[in-house]
């Protein structure tokens, strides 16, 4: 995000610096209202519902939080946190008590007006008895919710969390009408700028403009949006090229050049937080030795992987999980380069002259993982590291190989905040710490950063933590994988798209307009 802001600050100053709409978009050509927006989207399932707790893939996230529902806060195209249903928020100095001022005059699609009760009821959906919501940990961290007035809610957290307003932008935590939640889940009733017309799970969804929306002039410009589930990558490209749809997500890297040659098609490519990893279980020799881990980090040719596996649609990683879409991404942290001599040096430090290791890979881990393993094998041999590639079946990979084999391939889509990412997979003792690596300094910084409200101090804390991961951690992060989407010139956007998630953070229906 930091990287993104600087790129954009230049843009902004060049244009009119003050002309920012509520969503934080630079006001370029004035958006037009009306028109139909058709999207060819991957990630649909016949089991899809309007229950945002179950949303896990692009089709429903785009239809849920991206059209029909709204969240308290949202991450703008520029990567800034802005209010959606919350107008403003403030924290107590220890970041334990958060007060949210809610927007007034907001209506649900069924005419009910929105208020504090809806927020509390919607949050409670995630911690209900038996609920399996992916956002459960976020809401479970709230000790108590208090309704201060009809349009003010206070959250008392169990421990300080400076990221709390970020966390409630999560697409799982959509706001439903209190007392009518079951009905809202059945029919898709939210406060979003579009209301549901037709929904066939795993096939298509159709929504039209909701005229009573609180910000109908500035978000949700289209008269209607149709989203079609197209699972096959070539079928998506084909649909865009034959003008059957206006935008598609997940463009196959091989088709990018072809699409780019079309004058009326724009490729939208951003580097976000999605990254590929090779985690080592430090409980197993030789990975318990930090020098072996360092040797392996110097033995991978990252640029070659980006060029050959991602066909250039990515960026080299630096062995930590924080990406360019994160607020405190340390882009100036010194990059670990491919250096067989240094790798040899660290092997010697570990008392070894050569190293024989097994690397478990499968294309079920990430597309191209087997080839990436072979590149690793090749670059490692120059440093006296003999990597034996073990091909594992893609079926059951996450149950039988990941977290079980000493060294394997893996991927992470990344998280919106540093704390969220670290505490998901790097904190001591959490179930998804896929290396078992622990560091006292890292752990204390994690605790310190979590409750720190001062942004510059947080920046330093997270910078140091990224450095610790790079130097001591047990995960090799060779590359970030870009989000590559495409749109026709029948639809337009502000000139900037978000990099947290594909297709303008899956908010294109709310932010883009017909040309």
């Amino acid at each position, binding site marked *: 995000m930091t990287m993104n802001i600087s790129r954009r600050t230049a843009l902004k100053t060049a244009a009119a610096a003050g002309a920012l709409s509520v969503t934080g978009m630079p006001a370029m050509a004035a958006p037009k209202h009306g028109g139909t927006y058709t999207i060819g989207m991957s990630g649909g399932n016949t089991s899809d519902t309007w229950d945002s707790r179950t949303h896990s893939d692009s089709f429903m996230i785009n239809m849920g939080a991206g059209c029909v529902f709204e969240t308290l806060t949202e991450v703008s195209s520029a990567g800034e946190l802005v209010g959606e249903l919350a107008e403003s928020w403030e924290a107590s100095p220890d970041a334990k008590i958060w007060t949210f001022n809610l927007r007034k005059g907001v209506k649900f699609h069924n005419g009910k007006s929105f208020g504090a009760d809806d927020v509390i009821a919607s949050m409670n959906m995630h911690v209900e008895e038996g609920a399996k*919501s992916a956002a459960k940990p976020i809401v479970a961290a709230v000790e108590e919710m208090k309704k201060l007035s009809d349009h003010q809610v206070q959250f008392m957290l169990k421990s300080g969390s400076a990221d709390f307003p970020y966390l409630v932008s999560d697409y799982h935590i959509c706001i439903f009408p209190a007392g009518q939640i079951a009905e809202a889940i059945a029919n898709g009733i939210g406060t979003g700028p579009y209301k549901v017309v037709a929904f066939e799970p795993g096939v298509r969804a159709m929504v039209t403009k909701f005229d009573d929306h609180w910000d109908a002039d500035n978000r949700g410009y289209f008269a209607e949006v149709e989203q079609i589930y197209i699972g096959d990558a070539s079928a998506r490209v084909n649909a865009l090229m*034959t003008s059957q749809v206006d935008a598609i997500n997940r463009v196959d890297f091989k088709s990018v050049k072809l699409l780019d040659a079309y004058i009326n098609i724009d490729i939208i490519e951003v580097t976000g937080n999605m990254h590929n990893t090779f985690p080592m279980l430090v409980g197993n020799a030789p990975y318990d030795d930090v020098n072996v881990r360092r040797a392996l980090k110097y033995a991978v040719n990252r640029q070659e992987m980006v060029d050959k596996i991602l066909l250039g649609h990515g960026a080299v990683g630096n062995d930590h999980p924080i990406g360019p879409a994160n607020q405190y991404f340390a882009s100036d942290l010194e990059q670990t380069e491919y250096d067989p001599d240094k790798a040899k040096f660290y092997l010697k430090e570990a008392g070894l002259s050569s190293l024989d290791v097994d690397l478990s890979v499968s294309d079920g881990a990430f597309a191209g993982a087997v080839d990436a393993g072979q590149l690793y094998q090749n670059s490692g041999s120059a440093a006296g590291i003999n990597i034996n590639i073990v091909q594992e079946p893609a*079926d059951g990979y996450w149950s039988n190989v990941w977290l079980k084999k000493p060294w394997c391939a893996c991927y992470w889509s990344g998280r919106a905040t540093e704390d969220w990412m670290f505490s998901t997979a790097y904190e001591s003792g959490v179930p998804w710490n896929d290396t078992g690596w622990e560091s006292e300094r890292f752990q204390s910084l994690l605790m310190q950063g979590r409750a720190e409200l001062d942004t510059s101090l947080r920046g330093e804390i997270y910078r140091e933590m990224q450095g610790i991961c790079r130097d001591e951690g047990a995960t090799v992060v060779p590359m970030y994988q870009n989000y590559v989407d495409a749109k026709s010139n029948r639809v337009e956007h502000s000139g900037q798209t978000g990099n947290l998630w594909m297709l303008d953070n899956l908010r294109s229906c709310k932010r883009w307009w017909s040309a």
Partner: protein
Amino acid sequence: MNNVAMIIGKRLGLGVLTMFMVSIIIFLAVNMLPGDFAQALLGQSATPEAVAAIRKDLGLDKPIHTRYFDWLIGVMQFDFGTSFAKANFSSYGGTAAAANFGTVADQIAPRFANTLFLAAVTAAIAVPLSLLIGVLAALYRYSIFDRIANISTLTSISSPEFFVAYVLILLLAVLNPVFPSLSNIHDGMDFTQKLQKTMLPALTLTLVVTAHMMRMTRAAIINLLASPYIEMARLKGLSPFRIIVFHALPNALAPIINVIALNLAYLITGVVVVEVVFVYPGVGQLFVDSVKIRDIPVVQACCLVFAAAYISLNLLADVMSILSNPRLRLPK
């Protein structure tokens, strides 16, 4: 006629037995695949606790024979159950969301209707076309027409379906935009809209199935042309067209009907690739998606539908060939 009724009765009985066997084989096969629904659904987040929780919710922790017979008893009462994916999502929260989840039958019915629609449109084009080409090819056998008909149909059947599909898209959607390349039909469309959207996949499938039917028609007719009664007809001075259509064709119907039935069954059960390329919401895609996540109730129901389609079409073909052949119709 009693004879026909007896054959139908026997075959239906055998059909039910076949479907029972199919269901056992599919059930065992899906269970032998590595990973189960819980693991496939959770993917990277498959912690042992989460997997165990989902298995318990769905009854996947019970032994395999108990699960099979539970399912079988349901099916005998025409209850195909609820798909694992839906059952699992409905247990996500205490809200009354569960009431809104349909059964497997509700899930398959609209998809199957779409599949039948595509098969019907294809058959309406392919069957008359291949009969016509077959008859003409027999009539003008070894002529240029015959050779061209043979070579072109054989070429189209030898090309992979997705290739034929993309060639058609290039010709009829990109270069000459006659038909849309997306066949996302839905209930809101009227018949002509649906027909237009279905045209490209139907044409693709026509190219795939025509060769088989056309060549069988040609071969069956040519076989008969050497028989004495055709010689007789020819000596009477009948026109070659009349000889073929009125004298040879009725006697060649049995093998032709069999081939048509086989191809119709293929149109119902084997068109996944075409569905994927044209984004056609048929039952094939549902089936593949369900196998991917090991959603056994949906997989089983799809298999039963497929098996039923094969069995009934084969039965229909046999009955038709008996009816078209007086020797079989009136046994001694």
